[in-house]
């Protein structure tokens, strides 16, 4: 049976994850909590708007209402960049400590002790580094712009009408997927770039916005929230999900999936619901394991540890917990 160690923070949990195998919770008031550490709390920002795990797993990166981008480790927080008067509402981590962040119509990259600025005509709502870190994808109104992080190559525009609010690369870098304001995902297949073509994929049918996205091990599936089940699109074939039907896991008639997190090595997806319930579902046979009963509010963040034996979650109402699924 899984065991749950509950925590109560009384503030919206923006990010629940692990640093060096230790649970960490970043709250919207700007505090970062390490409940298993002797030094339990670090103040990262005055008002926190965005947070993500660094790619090496040793720190989290946060963006705040104070215009600061911070790197937080167990007992300290350091300023990565400061943009006075700006709200840092999007953040992304890249290889070798690279940090991408955005405010309004501007995106920045801090890499190799340099800062680079990318201006856009419309607000940047989503950010993602390509797997090798050479490019930064900026989701915006009517598409995605790909910038070169190193050098001065011309950016590439991927057009698709509508508001793109989040963007991610597939682990192999072949696909870029955005979540849209109109209850759909949009994908571009990037391996045709020599011919200049990109293949479009429209993944629609969600009753609400699919805001949480997670790639399964080796990029076989893309799991998404926004429906009564975790909607998983198959990406293992040559054409990705084109012409294929997605699978739904952990379906509940009376609830809505708001958070998904795929297991680091196996085809298992952790599913968080709008009523605070958490389940784990095996993709092979759809078998479900209840990990947490419903609580006070929607699950806002959900992550596995590197070994795939523990899960942390946080909710909009500040409830959080550490779930041990190792038996």
């Amino acid at each position: 049976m899984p065991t749950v160690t509950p925590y109560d923070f009384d503030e919206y949990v923006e990010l629940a994850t692990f640093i060096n195998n230790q649970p960490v919770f970043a709250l919207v008031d700007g505090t970062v909590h390490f409940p298993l550490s002797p030094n339990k709390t670090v103040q990262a920002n005055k008002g926190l708007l965005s947070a993500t795990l660094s790619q090496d797993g040793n720190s989290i990166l946060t963006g705040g209402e104070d215009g600061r981008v911070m790197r937080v480790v167990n007992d300290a927080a350091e300023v990565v960049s400061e943009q006075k008067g700006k709200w840092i509402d999007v953040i992304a981590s890249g290889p070798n400590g690279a940090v991408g962040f955005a405010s309004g119509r501007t995106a920045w990259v801090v890499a190799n002790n340099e800062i680079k600025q990318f201006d856009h005509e419309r607000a940047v709502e989503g950010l993602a580094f390509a797997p090798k870190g050479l490019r930064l994808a900026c989701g915006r109104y009517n598409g995605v712009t790909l910038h070169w992080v190193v050098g001065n190559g011309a950016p590439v525009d991927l057009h698709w009408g509508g508001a793109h609010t989040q963007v991610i690369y597939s682990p192999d870098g072949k696909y870029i997927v955005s979540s849209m304001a109109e209850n759909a995902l949009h994908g571009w297949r990037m391996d045709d770039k020599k011919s200049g073509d990109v293949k479009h994929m429209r993944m629609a049918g969600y009753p609400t916005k699919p805001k949480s996205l997670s790639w399964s091990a080796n990029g076989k599936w893309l799991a998404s929230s926004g429906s009564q089940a975790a909607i998983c699109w198959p990406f293992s074939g040559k054409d990705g999900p084109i012409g294929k039907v997605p699978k739904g896991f952990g379906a509940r008639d009376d609830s809505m999936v708001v958070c998904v997190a795929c297991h680091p090595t196996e085809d298992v997806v952790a599913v968080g619901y709008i009523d605070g319930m958490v389940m784990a579902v095996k993709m092979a046979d759809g078998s479900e394991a209840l990990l947490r009963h419903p609580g006070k509010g929607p699950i806002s963040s959900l992550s596995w540890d590197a070994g795939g034996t523990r899960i942390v979650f946080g909710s909009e109402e500040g409830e959080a917990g550490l779930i041990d699924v190792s038996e």
Partner: protein
Amino acid sequence: MSEARTPVTVLTGYLGSGKTTLLNRILSEDHGKKYAVIVNEFGEIGIDNDLIVESDEEIYEMNNGCVCCTVRGDLVRVVQGLLKRKGRFDGILVETTGLADPAPVAQTFFMDDDVRAKAQLDAVVGLVDAKHFPLRLKDAPEAEDQVAFADVVILNKVDLVSVDELEKLRATVRKINPHAIIHTAERSNIALDQVLDRGSFDLDRILEDDPHFLHAHDHDHPDHECGPSCDHNHSDGAAHSHAHSHEHDCGPDCNHEDHKLDASTHDTTVKSISLRAGEMNRDLFFSWINKLTQIDGPDILRLKGIVAFPGDDDRFVVQGVHMIVEGDHQRPWKADEKRETRMVFIGRNLDREKIERTFNACVAA
């Protein structure tokens, strides 16, 4: 999730209408409440305050490129960010640029599910520069839209105009928007409780505290003597105030004050249509309102109404912006209250004959 939604006030007004002065008052006066203010540029606001958020206007088309189905994408993000911390603000104020169309701002609070779960449009407040508004009407359609859209209109800087000019201005505003609540001010010295927490978009209060609605439009011209060729809808029994539509053909013995002013207000293109009937057939009414807003939505700036359905003990209230309509049961009809349906449309190019005819076709048998 059943907690009260945070009220949002939208402040519109042309350059020089006094918006900044009003914002500064809201941020600095001791009114016991905490408002977050979303502005396009910090620039003009002299106060350094962490309750002010700068946000670039991002218009997003939401419905396959329909030009009227737009939201402010930046507000979706900022409002959600502001409301993640519970109890942090008593309300949010959105300042729009002088040239802004108020519709995308208002529609954000209806079309985006995440926003509407947490925030609720309270009122659109339009500031009007009393001295320059007649000029604005000639050169800027946005100025007229802002008045057409407003729940509350503040005629500001009235100390700079004569009594006559003020009355003409009032008539012009009434002509564009007969149902707005009008206040006058000098240097934006309006009582803040007339601006904040109005509940104008709240379905529970719709039309309730709108004195003009009850009489279709209330000219309040006591020396008017109605004659045989005056075709007011005198059936409006409410008090003495003879409600009538603006499209009536006035006769020689009709001495409306506002008609004498028409020469100076011919620059308005927005008109309103007030409708009144008995109980409505439920199915016919819903298919009518849906069809009308789908087809004529781009021309409809605002609509509001109270609907009576046979066998339904509750008043049903509707309101809308362009193609968006929402409705809900409000409260039981009172024993001494006449069960009737009243609606108003404010917009451009509205076909009065068609709207009246199709509305009347929905009356319950």
